[in-house]
C-alpha cells in the first residue's frame, strides 16, 4: 500500500514578532497612546503579528487585578494589529490571556526583541493624515497605494538584496524593503512612505516618511540627500517635524540614527 503524502509538517521557526511591552495595567492609557502612535504611522502595524509583553506588569502591586485584555484586543483588531500571544506576566495574567484566545509564548531572554515603545514624553500630536481632499468618502481597497518588495520566499531575511527604486515615490505610495536595505534614486514626496528592515538611502529630496530598522534594528540608519521629511523613524523610535525641520539640517544631506532612545538627525560634513 502506498504511503500517503504528508499533509503538513511542523518546524520550529524563529519569526520576527513585534513585542508591545505593557508598562501599565491601565488599558485605557495604553490604548490612547497606541492610537496616537498609530496615527503617526498608519499601516505600520497593519497585519503585523504582535506579542504583548507582560513582564513589567508582573512586578507591579496590582499584578493580580484583572487586565482588560479583551478591550485591548478589540482595539488592536480595529487597528489591524494582530495580537498573537503574551510573553511574561503573572500566572493570573497569563491565564486571562489564554482565556482571551492568546498564545502563551515562552520567554527566551537570549533573543533580542523588537521594541515599539511609546515616546518618552508624548511629544507630538499626530501629523495630520494626508488630507484626502475631494477624494470621496471611504476609500476601501485603494488602487495604487502599495508597492512592495517582491517576496523572496526562501532566502533568510538578512540575505535579501537591496531594493532599488528609481522612480518618484508619490503621495499614498508605500515602499517596503522587507528584510533588506532600501535605496531610492528619485524624489520621495510628502505623503509617501519608505519602510525598510535595514538602512534607507535617498539620493534625492526626502519629503515623505522614512522608517528604517522597522523590525527593531536599532543600528539602522537613514541617509537623505536633502532632508525635508515629514517623519523619520529608527526601530520604532520616531521623530516628526510638525514645527518644521531644524535649520541646521533642513535641505541638507543628512543622516539619521538612534543614540540610546533618541532619534538624531545630523547634517553630513562637507569635508572628505
Amino acid at each position: 500500500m502506498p504511503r500517503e503524502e504528508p499533509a503538513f509538517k511542523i518546524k520550529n521557526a524563529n519569526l520576527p514578532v513585534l513585542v508591545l511591552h505593557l508598562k501599565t495595567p491601565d488599558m485605557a492609557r495604553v490604548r490612547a497612546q497606541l492610537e496616537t502612535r498609530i496615527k503617526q504611522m498608519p499601516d505600520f502595524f497593519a497585519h503585523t503579528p504582535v506579542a504583548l509583553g507582560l513582564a513589567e506588569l508582573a512586578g507591579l502591586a496590582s499584578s493580580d487585578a484583572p487586565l482588560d485584555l479583551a478591550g485591548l484586543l478589540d482595539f488592536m483588531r480595529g487597528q489591524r494589529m494582530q495580537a498573537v500571544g503574551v510573553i511574561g506576566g503573572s500566572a493570573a495574567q497569563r491565564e486571562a490571556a489564554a482565556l482571551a484566545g492568546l498564545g502563551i509564548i515562552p520567554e527566551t531572554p537570549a533573543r533580542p526583541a523588537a521594541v515599539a515603545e511609546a515616546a518618552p514624553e508624548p511629544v507630538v500630536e499626530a501629523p495630520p493624515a494626508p488630507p484626502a481632499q475631494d477624494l470621496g468618502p471611504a476609500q476601501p481597497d485603494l488602487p495604487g497605494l502599495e508597492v512592495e518588495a517582491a517576496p523572496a520566499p526562501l532566502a533568510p531575511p538578512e540575505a535579501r538584496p537591496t531594493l532599488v527604486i528609481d522612480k518618484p515615490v508619490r503621495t499614498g505610495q508605500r515602499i517596503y524593503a522587507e528584510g533588506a536595505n532600501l535605496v531610492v534614486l528619485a524624489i520621495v514626496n510628502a505623503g509617501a512612505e519608505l519602510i525598510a528592515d535595514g538602512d534607507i538611502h535617498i539620493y534625492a529630496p526626502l519629503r515623505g516618511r522614512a522608517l528604517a530598522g522597522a523590525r527593531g534594528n536599532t543600528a539602522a540608519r537613514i541617509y537623505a540627500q536633502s532632508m525635508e521629511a515629514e517623519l523619520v523613524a529608527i526601530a520604532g523610535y520616531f521623530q516628526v517635524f510638525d514645527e518644521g525641520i531644524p535649520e541646521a539640517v533642513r535641505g541638507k544631506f543628512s543622516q539619521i540614527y538612534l543614540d540610546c532612545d533618541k532619534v538624531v538627525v545630523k547634517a553630513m560634513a562637507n569635508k572628505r
Partner: protein
Amino acid sequence: MPKVIVVTSGKGGVGKTTTSASFATGLALRGNKTVVIDFDVGLRNLDLIMGCERRVVYDIINVINGEVALKQALIKDKHCDNLYVLPASQTRDKDALNLDGVGRILDELKESFDCIVCDSPAGIEHGAFSAMYYADEALVVTNPEVSSVRDSDRILGILAAKSKRAVEGLEPVREHLLVTRYDPKRVAAGEMLSVDDIQEILRIPLIGVIPESESVLQASNSGTPAIHLDKSDVAEAYRDVVARFMGDEVPMRFTTYEKVGLLKRLFGGR
C-alpha cells in the same frame, strides 16, 4: 495606432472637463478622428460644456450593459466633423463602469477613432480608476495650489503602479503636466505656486499652462468648448497644448506676469 488619453487630477473643480472638451476639440480640428468620453457618472457635465445635452438619449452605461449599440450612444459634435461625445449617465450606479465593460468599449472605439479622450471624475475610485486604467497617455490637470498638487501626485503614483500598462509591465503611461487656472499676477504676489514649484514636486514634463479667465465660464454657459473662443488667451493656450501633444515645438506662454506689464507699457493699455 489609436491612443487613449485620460484627463485626470484627483481633485475636483480643477478644469478636467473644460480641458477634455477643448483638448478633444483641438485634436479633431487637427484632423484626428476623436471621441471624448464622460466618466463622471452622476454629475454628467461634459455634454453641457460640449453643448449637446439635449441630444443625449443613451449613455456609456447603456452600452456597457449591452442595451444599445455603441453607435447609438455616440453623439456627433455640432462644431467639428471629426468629433463625437459618449455621454455619462445622470442617474445610474457608479459601479456599472466596471473595468471589463470599459475595456470592451475602448477596444470597439479603437477600430474607428484615432484619439479617445477620457474625462475622469474627481477621486481615485470607480469611475476615476476605470477612466485611467487603459490610458496610453495622461493629462494631469493641476491648479497652482498645494492640495491640487498633492492629489495630482497621488494620481501619478496610481498611474505608475496600477494602470494596465503598469500591471502588464508595458511601456509606462506617458504623463503630461497641464497647469490650469494659472494667474501669473497672484503667482508673482506669492499667493499661488509657480509652474516651477509644481514641476519641482511632480517632476513630469509640462505640456501647457492655461490662464485663469472669465471667458471659460461664458464658454461653458453657451455650450462651446473654450478652444473655439475668439481672441482668447485660454483658446490659444489650449491650441498650444494640442500642438505640443502632436509633437510641435511651441514655446510656453501665459506663465509670467512681466510680459503683461511690458505689453501694457508699450501700448499704454489697461
